[in-house]
């Protein structure tokens, strides 16, 4: 088991290394440069000096080696724009993204899994068709547009909820204030997440319900309740656990847009700003962090598997 973990973690680190190589070379081999340099007002000499100062005149491979050397010691370099260390920027923004994402994840799992199970059990009925159609519909809504509509509704028509930021400027921290600010972004992100969760759960459950051992359990006279919870749902838990691994990337991607719509000061906003300014050290930092989260989630999902399914044993 522990050997498996070591293997899995080293595999994850390898993937992360590949991610960093891909990202770094994509950014640096592309024409143009960071906006800090490409500023139109600066003279050619100024640009050259800045390029030298930032070390951009060195060969790409050497720069990558230097970046990697720093990264393994926890130094992701400095932002080209604000000159702040990237690590510091991430530490500042990351918790905000976690608040938004975790709240959404808990909320949507609590609603989505029962809905998915219900749809699977009532497969073919009008309830199932309604739930399935609603999730198709939910997936088709552009989340930024939904955000704008919510803003119009709650700011222009009925101004009852704040539409931007995490806290009311100038006031002290209060939980109520945070929840009020959280309401709209969380709702928007939930509309993106729910359909995914409902669908994954439904198809996992449908697979299990039609299996032979559920029929065996019925043939034993166990009664509908025990057949459902002890035999069907218990087995469906394995693929349902996989959902978390599948939706975390969707969640992180979705939060980029939502954070920008509602001015939520998280990583997604940071990423877009950095991309706009071609602030590549920050882009690198965000990508590595996000990649690491996804990889860790995948490893955790695999570990949950071993607990839930005795057939899976990692050597």
């Amino acid at each position, binding site marked *: 088991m522990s050997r498996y973990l070591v293997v899995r973690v080293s595999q994850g680190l390898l993937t992360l290394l590949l991610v960093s190589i891909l990202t770094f070379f994509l*950014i640096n081999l592309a024409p143009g440069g960071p906006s800090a340099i490409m500023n139109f007002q600066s003279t050619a000499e100024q640009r050259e000096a800045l390029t030298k100062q930032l070390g951009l005149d060195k060969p790409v491979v050497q720069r990558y080696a230097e970046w990697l050397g720093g990264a393994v010691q926890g130094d992701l370099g400095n932002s080209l724009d604000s000159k702040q260390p990237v690590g510091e920027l991430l530490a500042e923004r990351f918790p905000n993204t976690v608040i938004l994402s975790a709240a959404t994840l808990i909320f949507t799992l609590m609603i989505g899994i029962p809905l998915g199970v219900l749809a699977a059990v009532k497969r073919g009925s009008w309830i199932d068709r309604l739930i399935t159609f609603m999730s198709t519909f939910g997936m088709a809504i552009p989340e930024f547009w939904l955000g704008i509509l919510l803003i119009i509704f709650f700011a222009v028509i009925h101004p009852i909820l704040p539409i931007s930021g995490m806290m009311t400027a100038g006031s002290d921290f209060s939980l109520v204030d945070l929840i009020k600010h959280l309401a709209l972004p969380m709702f928007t992100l939930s509309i993106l997440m729910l359909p995914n969760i409902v669908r994954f759960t439904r198809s996992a459950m449908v697979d299990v319900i039609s299996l032979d051992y559920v029929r065996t359990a019925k043939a034993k006279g166990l009664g509908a309740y025990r057949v459902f919870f002890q035999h069907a749902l218990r087995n469906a838990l394995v693929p349902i656990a996989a959902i978390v691994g599948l939706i975390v*990337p969707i969640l992180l991607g979705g939060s980029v847009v939502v954070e920008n719509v509602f001015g939520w000061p998280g990583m997604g906003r940071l990423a877009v700003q950095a991309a706009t300014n071609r602030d590549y050290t920050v882009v690198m930092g965000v990508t590595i962090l996000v990649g690491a989260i996804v990889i860790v989630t995948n490893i955790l999902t695999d570990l949950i598997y071993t607990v839930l399914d005795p057939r899976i044993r990692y050597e």
Partner: protein
Amino acid sequence: MSNTASITERERISPPSVAPGKGRIILNVLGGLSVVGKASLSYLVLIYLFVLVAPLFLAHSPTDTDPLSVTLPASGQHWLGTDELGRDELARIVSGGRITLMVGLAAMALAVVLGGLLGSIAGFFGGKTEYVIMRLVDMMLSIPSFFLILIEITSFGNSPPVVIVAVGFTYWPQMARIVHAEVMKWRDSSLVEAETTLGAGPWRILFRHVVPQTYSSIIVLATLGIGWAILAESGLSYLGLGIQPPLASWGNMLQQSQNYIWTAPVLAVYPGVFILLTVLSYSLLGEALRDVLDPKLKR
């Protein structure tokens, strides 16, 4: 003739038929679509026709600004009103639609070709080839798609071709993963063994016999994927990273409209409705196609 071979198979198979052509098969598939599927397909055909043909008839150019008639409400002159620079909203919707819809199609075409090719090669040949391709896929999948597009846009700018490549390049790993899994199921199948024993070479077996088995999955996934690509493009453009003004796209129209929600909230509605309807139609069409092409999956 021997006694057994001459036993006529009396199973009721209807009288001799002729070989069905490709066109016939397509018609059969489309005819078998559910009502929802047919409605979605009709909407999509209409919207593509609309954005392609409408400019020939529209009175206004999507780029002509008019400082004297900004954010006008809908009227006989401007059917959907005008935007913050006085441009005709309908003309903008049409020209933005062209970009958005084409980006969606082209990006998916790229993803299908790249993902289908690499996925089927990995799935069929196995071994080191498979290992390398699938590690690459894993890596791509461990960066959430939106961040991947961000990186690509950061690197190569945001002209429409780059946006197409960026979006398509992000979707190919998903395509490759599905095709890989599908093709792998056939790797040790008796279908492959049967063709091998007849003397067919590996490439012939792969492309003539195995890949066609995955067409239904690819078609369904691609249909759903076009919707996803449209969403991705509009999201990017909304963030100011995709299609840049003065070119219109449904996404960047929404970005500008957000600044005018107090004065002209209706501008934020039109492009969104079109995106929603289009993506929804692609999803419903995809699901309807799946029911026809792969009835096993219908539950």
